């Protein structure tokens, strides 16, 4: 449903539903910490960013009409066949594996935390650096470059 909507806000709502259902699956798999992180970070923070940008760009009915023109069967039939082939291969690989009987066990957040801060300490620091670089990069890219554009226009006028 996310990939077939014309209106961006509708697609966003369907994506939130998908995120919530994945979070419930995490809970059923015995990973309550991951479920909470999914709801808080994905459905909370990232979706707010998307909504903010969509509201900022003022995408409404015009974008929906444009998308309706773009999304013809001629366009999506080829990628759909390719994706179906890929899914068939995945289905074959997963269903032909020999699955030993087992029982699902809950991985509590304490084990995750101990594993996160002992063997994966380098990974945590790298993730922190990545987030820092992301923040700085977003702040740098997001600033309006009107001064530079203005200067170029001035030069063209002078020439």
């Amino acid at each position: 449903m996310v990939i077939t909507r014309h209106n961006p806000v509708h697609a966003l709502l369907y994506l939130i539903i998908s995120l919530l259902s994945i979070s419930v699956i995490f809970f059923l798999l015995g990973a309550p910490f991951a479920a909470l992180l999914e709801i808080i970070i994905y459905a909370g923070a990232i979706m707010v960013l998307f909504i903010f940008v969509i509201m900022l760009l003022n995408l409404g009915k015009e974008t929906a009409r444009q998308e309706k023109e773009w999304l013809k069967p001629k366009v999506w039939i080829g990628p759909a066949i390719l994706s179906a082939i890929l899914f068939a291969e995945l289905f074959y690989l997963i269903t032909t594996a020999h699955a030993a009987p087992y029982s699902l066990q809950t991985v509590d957040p304490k084990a995750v935390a101990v594993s996160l801060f002992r063997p994966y300490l380098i990974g945590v620091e790298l993730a922190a650096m990545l987030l820092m670089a992301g923040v700085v990069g977003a702040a740098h890219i997001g600033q309006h470059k009107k001064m530079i554009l203005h200067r170029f226009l001035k030069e063209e006028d002078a020439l």
Partner: protein
Amino acid sequence: MKSSTEIVMLLAGLLFVLGVAGVIIRKNIIFMLLSVEVMLNASGLAFVAAGSRWAQPDGQVMFIFILAMAAAEVSIGLALILQIYHQHKSLDIDKLKEMKG
């Protein structure tokens, strides 16, 4: 009756394939970014399912890393989308052809 990890893995594969199809068929950058989010979710689901299968916390650790990467990627991508929209007044990726290789 199949075991539940296989079903969850199939769901993850289905979500990933849907994300790939969305990236391919869409021309609007925002929808492509949403499809990438779907794919990241699918990979995180696969990691958590595998971690729960062997009762190891590594899967959830990888999920947390994927979450951090997705947050950084979304912030950078949305900033780029804002800049592209301010410069081209459009979100059509076919119009961004001035970067000829």
